[in-house]
C-alpha cells in the first residue's frame, strides 16, 4: 500500500544489476518477483483456479489424511490428560515446565514470521513479500492456536483458565498484574486477535474475487457471505488501505512485544541462566529465525505441487534465506553472549548453570543446537544453497529442529538449581510426545484446509504489484530515452 513507486528493490540494490546502472531490481531477470507476461487476469486465474476449479488432488487427500490422523492424536492426548492430569507428563519437581513450555515458545516463534512478512516488510516497502504474506499470515494464526493450547493445558485444570482473566468474581480477588505469566495471557490473546483481524481484512477483497468467479451456487453464497459485500469502491479501498497499513504498524511493535514478554517468563525469574537482559532481543530474533524456516518448510513443497513458480520465484527463496541467515547470526551472537556473561558475572551459580548446559547430562542437546542453529545455516552464505530447493528445504528443517532444541536447552536448565539435593532429571513421556505431534496435526490440518478453500496468494496485492511494475517499466523506458537524447 502507501507509496511504493519509488522502490528500487533496496535489498538488492547494486548486486542485482550487472551493467552497473541502477535498474529496479524486479526488472532484472534474476530478481523478478513474478514470471514473464503476468497480467491482472492471469494472476487472478492462476490463484483462484486452485480454489475453484482444480480437482482435489490425491496428494492433498494424502496430506490432509495424515494431518487429520495426527489431529486425532491431539484429541486423544488432551482427553487422557484431562482425565488423569499433568502427572502423565514427564514434568517433576524441580523441572516443572517441560515440553509444554518448550512447545509453546516454539510455536509462538513460528507464528512470528507471518507477522514479520506481512507487517514489517510492508512497512519497509519490500514488494517481494506480496506473494508469500497471505500464506505466512495463515501460518501465524494456526501456529498461535497450537501455541495457546500448551499453557492452557499446563495449568492443570484448563476449565478454570478463565481465572486468569480480570473479571469481577465472587472470590473478590483479581489477577496478579505484576507477573509475566499474566502478561502472557494478554500478549497471546491480543496477538491471536490482531493476527486474525489482519488476515481476514486482507482476505476480504480476494473473497469478493472468488465470489465473482465462482460458478456453483453454494460457493457463490459462501464466498459471498464471507466477502461481506465488498465491491471495490474507491472510498472503501481508501479505508481499507489505511486500516491495513495501520494494522501493519500496530502489529510490528506487537510482535516484538509478544516474544519479549514470552522471554520475560524466563528472564524475570531469579534463576541462573535465565535472569539475563539479553533474552528479549534474542528470543525475538530466534522467533523470526524459526518462523522463516517454517514458512520455507511448508512453501517449498506447496510451490512445487501447485506449480506456483511464476509467483513464488527464486528471488523469494533467496530473500527469505538471507533473512534467515541474518537472524541466525543474531541468535549465534545471543549464544556467545550467554556464555560470556555467565563467566563475566563471576557468579558461581551462573557459571555452574552454563557448565551444566554445555557439559552436563543434557550437553548433547546444547551441541546439537549449535550444530543446527549456528554451524549448518552458514551454508546459506552460498547462493547455491539459497536457491536450490532440496538443500534449502533440508536446512530449514534443521533450523526448525535447532530452534526447538534451543527452547529445550533453556527449559531444561530447571533440572539443576541452587542446591544439589534438589537436582533432578527430566525425561518426556509418550504423552509429552503425542501432544507435541498432535499439534502438528492441528497445524497441518488447518494449513491443508486453507490451501484448498482460500486463496493462498494475496491476489489483489499481486495485481497492484503488476500495476506498479508496468508503471515503472513505462517510466524506465521514458527515462532511458531522455538519457540518450542528452548524450547526443
Amino acid at each position, binding site marked *: 500500500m502507501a507509496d511504493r513507486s519509488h522502490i528500487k528493490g533496496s535489498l538488492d540494490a547494486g548486486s542485482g544489476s550487472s551493467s552497473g546502472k541502477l535498474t529496479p531490481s524486479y526488472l532484472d531477470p534474476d530478481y523478478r518477483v513474478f514470471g514473464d507476461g503476468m497480467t491482472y487476469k492471469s494472476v487472478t486465474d492462476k490463484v483462484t483456479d486452485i480454489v475453484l476449479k482444480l480437482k482435489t488432488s490425491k496428494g492433498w487427500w494424502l496430506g490432509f489424511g495424515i494431518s487429520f490422523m495426527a489431529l486425532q492424536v491431539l484429541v486423544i492426548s488432551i482427553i487422557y490428560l484431562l482425565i488423569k492430569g499433568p502427572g502423565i507428563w514427564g514434568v517433576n519437581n524441580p523441572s516443572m515446565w517441560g515440553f509444554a513450555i518448550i512447545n509453546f515458545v516454539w510455536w509462538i516463534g513460528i507464528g512470528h514470521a507471518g507477522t514479520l512478512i506481512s507487517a514489517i516488510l510492508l512497512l519497509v516497502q519490500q514488494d517481494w513479500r506480496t506473494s508469500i504474506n497471505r500464506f505466512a499470515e495463515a501460518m501465524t494464526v494456526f501456529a498461535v492456536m497450537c501455541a495457546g493450547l500448551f499453557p492452557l493445558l499446563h495449568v492443570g485444570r484448563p476449565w478454570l483458565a478463565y481465572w486468569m482473566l480480570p473479571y469481577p468474581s465472587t472470590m473478590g480477588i483479581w489477577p496478579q498484574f505484576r507477573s509475566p505469566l499474566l502478561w502472557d495471557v494478554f500478549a497471546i490473546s491480543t496477538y491471536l486477535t490482531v493476527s486474525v483481524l489482519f488476515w481476514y481484512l486482507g482476505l476480504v477483497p480476494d473473497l469478493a474475487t472468488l465470489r465473482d468467479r465462482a460458478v456453483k451456487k453454494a460457493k457463490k453464497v459462501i464466498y459471498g457471505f464471507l466477502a461481506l459485500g465488498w465491491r471495490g469502491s474507491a472510498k472503501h479501498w481508501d479505508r481499507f488501505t*489505511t486500516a491495513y497499513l495501520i494494522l501493519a504498524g500496530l502489529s510490528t511493535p506487537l510482535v516484538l512485544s509478544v516474544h519479549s514478554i514470552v522471554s520475560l517468563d524466563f528472564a524475570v525469574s531469579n534463576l541462573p541462566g535465565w535472569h539475563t537482559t539479553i533474552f528479549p532481543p534474542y528470543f525475538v530474533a530466534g522467533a523470526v529465525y524459526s518462523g522463516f524456516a517454517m514458512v520455507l518448510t511448508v512453501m517449498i513443497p506447496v510451490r512445487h505441487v501447485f506449480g506456483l513458480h511464476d509467483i513464488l520465484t527464486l528471488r523469494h527463496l533467496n530473500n527469505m534465506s538471507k533473512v534467515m541467515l541474518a537472524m541466525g547470526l543474531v541468535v549465534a551472537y545471543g549464544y556467545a553472549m550467554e556464555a560470556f556473561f555467565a563467566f563475566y558475572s563471576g557468579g558461581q551459580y551462573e557459571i555452574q548453570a552454563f557448565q551444566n548446559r554445555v557439559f552436563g547430562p543434557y550437553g548433547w542437546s546444547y551441541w546439537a543446537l549449535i550444530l543446527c542453529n549456528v554451524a549448518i545455516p552458514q551454508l546459506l552464505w552460498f547462493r547455491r544453497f539459497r536457491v536450490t530447493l532440496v538443500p534449502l528445504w533440508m536446512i530449514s528443517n534443521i533450523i526448525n529442529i535447532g530452534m526447538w532444541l534451543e527452547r529445550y536447552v533453556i527449559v531444561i536448565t530447571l533440572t539443576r538449581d541452587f542446591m544439589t539435593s534438589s537436582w533432578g532429571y527430566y525425561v518426556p513421556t509418550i504423552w509429552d510426545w503425542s501432544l507435541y505431534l498432535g499439534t502438528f496435526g492441528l497445524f497441518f490440518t488447518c494449513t491443508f484446509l486453507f490451501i484448498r478453500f482460500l486463496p493462498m496468494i494475496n491476489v489483489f496485492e499481486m495485481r497492484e504489484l503488476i500495476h506498479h511494475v508496468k508503471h515503472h517499466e513505462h517510466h524506465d523506458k521514458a527515462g532511458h530515452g531522455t538519457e540518450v537524447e542528452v548524450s547526443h
Partner: protein
Amino acid sequence: MSHEQETHRPESYGMIAEFDSPETLMAAAEKTRDAGYSRIDAYSSFPIEGMVEALGQKRTGLPKLILLFGFIGMCTGLFLQGWTAASNLGITIGPYMFYGYSMNIGGRPMLSFPNFIPVTFELTILFSALAAFFGTFILSKLPMPYHPLFNSERFSLASQDKFFLCIEARDPQYEKGKTEEFLEGLNPDSIEEIGH
C-alpha cells in the same frame, strides 16, 4: 431528507462505464469530477493511489478514530491495573459493588508502573486494531449482502481485471441521456444502466 429521497426515488441506481486500465479510469474520474458530477464512485480490483482525490472526495478519517480507540485502550489498561492491583476502591455498577484488592507482591510499590506496562501496551494495540478492523467495515456500510451494482453481469469483472466508473442517479446533474452521452465521450469499453 429521507422523506425526499423516498418520494423522488430515481428509477435507476446509476450508470457504469467500463475501462481497461487504472490509468484510463483515473483520467475518466478526473474528467467526470471536473464536469461537475459529485455522486460518483470508481471500482477496481486493487487500490489505486490518488483515486479518492480524482473523484473529488476527501481521504478517510479512520486514523483519528484508531488513535482515539488506542488512547481508550491505554486508559483502560492503566485504570484496570491501578484499580485492581493498587487500590481497595469500591465501584458500583448497577446493583453490584466491585472492589479493588491491593496486594503486596515482593514488597514492590502498589503503583508499580514498570510492571503495568505490558498489559497497558497490549490493550492499546488491541483496542486500536479492533477500531481499525471494524471501522473499515462500519464506515463503508459493510457487510451489505445486496447492492444494485451486483445486478450487472459485467460488474463481476470489477473484482478481477476491469475498472468501472459509476455516476449515481442521485447526482443532481444526472440525466439519463446526457449522462450517457458524457460517459461515451470518455471512451469506455462499455456503458450500462444499473437498476435497483
